[in-house]
C-alpha cells in the first residue's frame, strides 16, 4: 500500500466554544456476565469523522448502539448533539441516523419504497417523500434499481441504499457500524468517498472499523478499543507515532538464526520483536527508514542471512501489539509476543 499521509481535516469547530457532537463519560454495558463496554469516555467535536477501531468483540457495536439510543447503558452518561441519551432519547433520535452492520432495509420492498417509507415516517408528505427518495436514489447511483426488490441488490448496492436511508433528513451525527465490511475493494472506495463528502457537508460521523487502513484513510481522530476499554486515542499520525511510523518485516534465509536476529533487532531498535507464526519471519517497529537501515546493517554485520525485507505501515495487529503488548488483536487470549 503506498504511503499517502493524510492531513487531518480541521473540524468546523470553534475550539473556544467546543460544542461537542458526542460527549460520553464512563459508559458501561453488560450482557449477563460479559462486560461489553467497560467504562468508555468519548468526545467527538462536530463535523469530524471519528473512528472507533478495534477487533471483533471489542465492544464497538455496543458503544454505537448506546449512543444511537438502541441499547440503554448500565452506567455512565452521554449526550449526542447536546441531548442526553438516557433522559431525552426522542430528542437524540431527531438528530441522528444509524447504518448498522447488516442492511436495515425491508428486502421485500423496492429500494424506492424503502426510502419513501422512511421519508413518510419522518413526516414528508407523499409527493415530497417520493421526491426525496428519487433524489437520493439518483445521487447514490441506484436509479436503475429503484424499482427492484432489495433482496435482488448486490452487497454494495444494499450498503449504498442503507446509507441513503440514513440521509433522508440530514443527521447531525451519522453512526456507521463497519460501513465497508464485506464489500469488494471498489465498493469500499465508493463508500469511503461518500463518507468524506458527507463529512465535508458538515455531518459528524462516528464509524466503527476493524481495519486500521480504513480509520487511517477516513478519520480525523481514532479511538482504539479492546475488551470494552479505550486503550488509545488520537489522530492517525499520533497513533502511528505511538506505534512507530513504520514496521520492518524481515525474512531470514535460515530459520536457525531467528533467535540471534530477534535479539539484534530488539537491541538495536529498542522495540519488541514479533515472530510470524510460520517462523523465519520477524517484524519490529522501526520508527523510520534510517533506523531500519541501521538495523539491517547490524543484522548483516552480525552474519545473519536475509531472504527479504520490507517496510510497511503498522497493521491493526501491530498497533495492538504496541498498545497492549499482546500480539494478536483477534485472539487476545493467545499472546505470542517475544519477551
Amino acid at each position, binding site marked *: 500500500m503506498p504511503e499517502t499521509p493524510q492531513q487531518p481535516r480541521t473540524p468546523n469547530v470553534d475550539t473556544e466554544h467546543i460544542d461537542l457532537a458526542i460527549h460520553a463519560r464512563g459508559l458501561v454495558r453488560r450482557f449477563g456476565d460479559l462486560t461489553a463496554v467497560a467504562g468508555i469516555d468519548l468526545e467527538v467535536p462536530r463535523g469530524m469523522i471519528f473512528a472507533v477501531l478495534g477487533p471483533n468483540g471489542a465492544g464497538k457495536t455496543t458503544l454505537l*448502539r448506546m449512543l*444511537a*439510543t*438502541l441499547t440503554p447503558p448500565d452506567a455512565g452518561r452521554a449526550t449526542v448533539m447536546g441531548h442526553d441519551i438516557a433522559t431525552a432519547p*426522542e430528542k437524540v*433520535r*431527531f438528530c*441522528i*441516523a*444509524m447504518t*448498522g*452492520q*447488516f*442492511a*436495515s*432495509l*425491508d*428486502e*421485500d*420492498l*423496492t429500494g424506492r*419504497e424503502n426510502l419513501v*417509507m*422512511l421519508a*413518510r*415516517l*419522518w*413526516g*414528508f*408528505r407523499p409527493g*415530497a417523500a417520493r421526491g*426525496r427518495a428519487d*433524489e*437520493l436514489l*439518483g*445521487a*447514490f*447511483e441506484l436509479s436503475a434499481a429503484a424499482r427492484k*426488490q432489495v433482496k435482488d441488490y448486490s452487497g454494495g448496492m444494499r450498503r449504498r441504499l442503507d446509507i*441513503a*436511508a440514513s*440521509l*433522508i*433528513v*440530514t443527521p447531525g451525527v451519522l453512526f456507521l457500524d463497519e460501513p465497508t465490511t464485506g464489500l469488494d475493494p471498489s465498493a469500499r*472506495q*465508493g463508500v469511503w*468517498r*461518500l463518507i468524506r*463528502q*458527507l463529512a465535508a*457537508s*458538515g455531518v459528524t460521523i462516528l464509524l466503527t472499523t476493524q481495519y486500521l487502513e480504513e480509520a487511517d484513510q477516513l478519520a480525523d481522530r481514532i479511538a482504539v478499543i479492546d475488551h470494552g476499554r479505550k486503550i488509545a486515542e488520537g489522530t492517525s499520525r499520533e497513533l502511528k507515532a505511538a506505534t512507530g511510523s513504520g514496521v520492518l518485516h524481515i525474512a531470514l534465509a535460515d530459520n536457525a538464526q531467528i533467535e540471534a536476529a530477534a535479539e539484534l533487532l530488539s537491541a538495536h531498535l529498542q522495540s519488541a520483536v514479533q515472530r510470524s507464526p510460520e517462523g523465519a519471519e520477524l517484524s519490529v517497529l522501526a520508527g523510520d527508514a534510517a533506523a531500519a537501515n541501521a538495523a539491517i546493517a547490524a543484522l548483516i554485520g552480525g552474519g545473519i542471512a536475509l531472504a527479504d525485507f520490507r517496510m510497511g505501515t503498522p497493521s491493526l495487529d501491530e498497533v495492538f501489539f504496541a498498545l497492549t503488548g499482546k500480539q494478536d488483536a483477534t485472539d487476545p487470549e493467545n499472546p505470542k509476543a517475544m519477551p
Partner: protein
Amino acid sequence: MTDQSSDAQTPGIAALRRVPPPTPPGPLSNALVFGWRAILKFRHVPEQLFDLVMTPIMFTLLFTFVFGGALAGSTGDYLQFFLPGILVQTVVFNSVYSGMGLSTDFQKGLFDRFRTLPIWSLAPFAGLMVGDLLRHLIAGGIILGIGLILGYRPEAGLIGTLAAFAMLLTIGFGMGWVFIVLGLLVRTPMTVMTLGFTILFPVTFASNIMVDPATMPGWLRSFVEVNPVSLMTTALRGLMSGTSSLSQIGLALIAPVVLTVTLAPVVLLLYRRR
C-alpha cells in the same frame, strides 16, 4: 441546487444538501405508513396469501366431504355448522404469520432503523396490525366465498355476515398481540411458527369448531366450554345465523379485550428493552 458531480461514483452534491426534518407527523400518520408497508408486501409477495388460505380451504373441503355426512347427517348441514368455525380458526392461525414477520424484521435489523427514528414507539406494531386485519379480511372473504359456492347460506344475510366479519377482525386483533409478544421473544421466525402451531392446534381442535362437544369426555368438555375459541365460534355462528345473543357476543369478546389490555404494555416493554 441542481449541481450534479461529474464523478460517476460520487453522489451529487444536491442530495447532500442540508435537509431539515419536516413537521413531526402524528402517531396515526406513522401507523398508516406501516400499514402501507403491509399492503406493499401483499403486492410484492402475493404467495403469502396462498399460505394463508390453503390450510383452511383443505380443512373446509376435507371436513365437509369426508366427515360431514357422518358428523351431521349430510354434508350440507355440516358445512352450515362448520363454516363459521373455520373462519375463526383461519383468523387465529393467521395471527401466527404476523409474529413470524416481526421476528424476521428483527433478525434483519430493520427494527434498529425504526427505533432510531423519532416516531411513535408502537407505530410499527400498529402497522403490523393493519396488515393482519387485511390478511384476515382477505382470507375470511376467500373462505366464505368457497363456502357459498359449496352451498353455505348465512341465514342472517348481509348484515349478519358483516357483523360476523367485524367480530373476526376483533378476534384477530386480540390474538395478534400473543404472536407479537412471541415474535419479540423468539429469535427465529421458524420457532415462532412451530411454537404458535403447538399452542393453536390443541386450542382449536379442543373446541366446538369441528364437532359438537356433547360426545367428548367430561373433563375435556369442561375445557371446551370455557375455551375462548369455542366462545368465539359460538358467537360467530350466532351472528351468521341470526340467533346471536348479547351474552354470546360479550363472552366472545372477553379474550380479545383481555389480551389487548394485558399484552400491549408487555409489547411496549419488550420492545424498549430489546
